[in-house]
């Protein structure tokens, strides 16, 4: 940049004002016709479509959100029954084991909380896994919207299961307030969900599941085997819970935005994701 400016200055210095006058005279020979009204109007009309209409866009966003909710209902039947069933069975199993084994129910909550969402991501990316992504992208309700609507279903289902398990464990953890119990599982849930979403956009089904499960088993083993780690999560100050939860939610929102960006246009999608 500095070199270019220096060169320009030198060039200007070299040019005598007389030379400038000569150039000006020569340029005067060229006649640039002012476009007529019709041409100006035609140009404005052509360019008008490129000017974003803010009001229209915000209305469209609301419409899109309602469409997303509506479509989530349709997607419900497309998510495999075995997913719904296995998640429910897992939670019932967790509840029974904790009760009969006299384990700490808060540990159970922390460990089980993100599992339905993690397995749900396989359902979210089912179109990608089975090679339908390109066809879905060309539809009115596009690939990223399908993924979001499925994620909404899976998320609501997961939180419902967690809440029910929390209610189920309430008689055993009377000493802690319900808010604290919710925070205990919700904080790691947000962070792990965000991480899982990031991972699922990088790797396809089997690789993603294996990677995440190995990490999750390590984390669970750590919590169970080293009580100090588990107690750290359980006894963390409420302010830290909110801090980590905030970080988790921000990370999750960032990943959601990444998902929309990635699956909006084909070029963001890697070849591995459209071949099958």
């Amino acid at each position, binding site marked *: 940049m500095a070199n270019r400016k220096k060169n320009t200055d030198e060039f200007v210095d070299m040019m005598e004002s007389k030379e400038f006058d000569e150039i000006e005279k020569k340029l005067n020979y060229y006649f640039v016709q002012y476009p007529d009204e019709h041409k100006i109007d035609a140009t404005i009309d*052509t360019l008008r*479509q*490129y000017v974003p209409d803010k009001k229209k866009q915000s209305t469209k966003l609301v419409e899109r959100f309602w469409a997303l909710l509506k*479509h989530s209902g*349709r997607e419900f039947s*497309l998510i495999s029954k075995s997913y719904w069933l296995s998640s429910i069975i897992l939670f019932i199993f967790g509840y029974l084991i904790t009760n009969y084994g006299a384990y700490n129910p808060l540990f159970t909550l922390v460990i089980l909380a993100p599992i339905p969402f993690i397995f749900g991501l396989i359902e979210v990316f*089912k179109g990608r896994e*089975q*090679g*339908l992504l*390109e*066809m*879905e*992208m*060309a*539809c*009115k*309700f*596009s690939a990223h919207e*399908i993924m979001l609507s499925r994620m909404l279903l899976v998320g609501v289902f997961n939180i419902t299961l967690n809440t029910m398990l929390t209610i189920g464990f309430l008689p055993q953890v009377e000493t802690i307030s319900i808010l604290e119990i919710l925070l205990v599982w919700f904080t790691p849930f947000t962070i792990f969900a965000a991480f899982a979403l990031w991972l699922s956009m990088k790797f396809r089904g089997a690789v993603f599941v294996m990677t995440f499960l190995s990490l999750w088993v390590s984390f669970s083993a750590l919590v169970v085997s080293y009580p100090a780690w588990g107690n750290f999560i359980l006894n963390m100050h409420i302010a830290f819970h909110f801090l980590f939860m905030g970080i988790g939610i921000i990370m999750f929102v960032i990943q959601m935005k990444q998902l929309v960006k990635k699956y909006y*246009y*084909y*070029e963001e999608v890697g070849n591995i994701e*459209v*071949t*099958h």
Partner: protein
Amino acid sequence: MRLLIDNVSKKFKDKWAIKYFSAELTEGVYALLGPNGAGKTTLMRMLADISMPSTGRILLNDKDISLMGDDYRDILGYLPQEFGLYKNFTAVRFLMYFASLKGLDKKFAIDKVEEVLDLVNLTKDRKRKIGTFSGGMKRRLGIAQALLNDPKILIVDEPTAGLDPQERIRFRNLLSEIAGDRIVFLSTHIVSDIEYIAKEVLLLKQGELIQRSTLGNLLEQVKGKVWSVNVTQAVLPEIQRQFKIGNIQRNESGIECRIVHDEKPVENAVAVHATLEDVYLYFFDKGAIKDV
């Protein structure tokens, strides 16, 4: 209806997949012909608005398709070259699902699904699981999903890949039937797919549009440049090395070669009628003809 591809280019890192492509399309079947790697799929994706051009724009009736959003998708049907299907779905369930993605009303969709199944000759397999379908049936189902919303613009990328000859003929007829009031843009490297149905043929080579013409005009261009000659086995390798060879057929008097060349290639060569296959051979390299 007018679809204008205005100076469209697509660059991936330092490689141009499509270079300053311009064309104006109106109702009818247009065939994009080119060898593998010519950039056909990249162009198709841009026309389907799932990929953005690096330069240029695509206008439908003077409106930029990238700004039309749902209005464009409402009138678009797209079948990519490679696609998968939900294997545990039946054909009807799969099409009903895609009808919902295309925003079709459920009552309307029920009738439309039956209509497109009939069109692609899958009515009797409507309740079968897709996992049990043959490759050709899957492709026909793919075509059916592209037709669900009665698209005004139908973009089909290598639609006959993997179809047997009978299915290819059926597909050609299907395209001819539905092309009346819509723009059908199909890419292929199989010339016989388009011989009888294309209103115009666009030849794409290394991302550039090298010819755009009617089939008749293209044939006219290679008229007098297609030769037939009988050679012996001994000289065949030399002939193959020097010229672009189409068919090679053994007969009682030796080996009959079809050569595409500007001038008479050898003394005893006889000029013969050109076919679209010869046009392809004339404009593209020898290697590309093998799938014809």
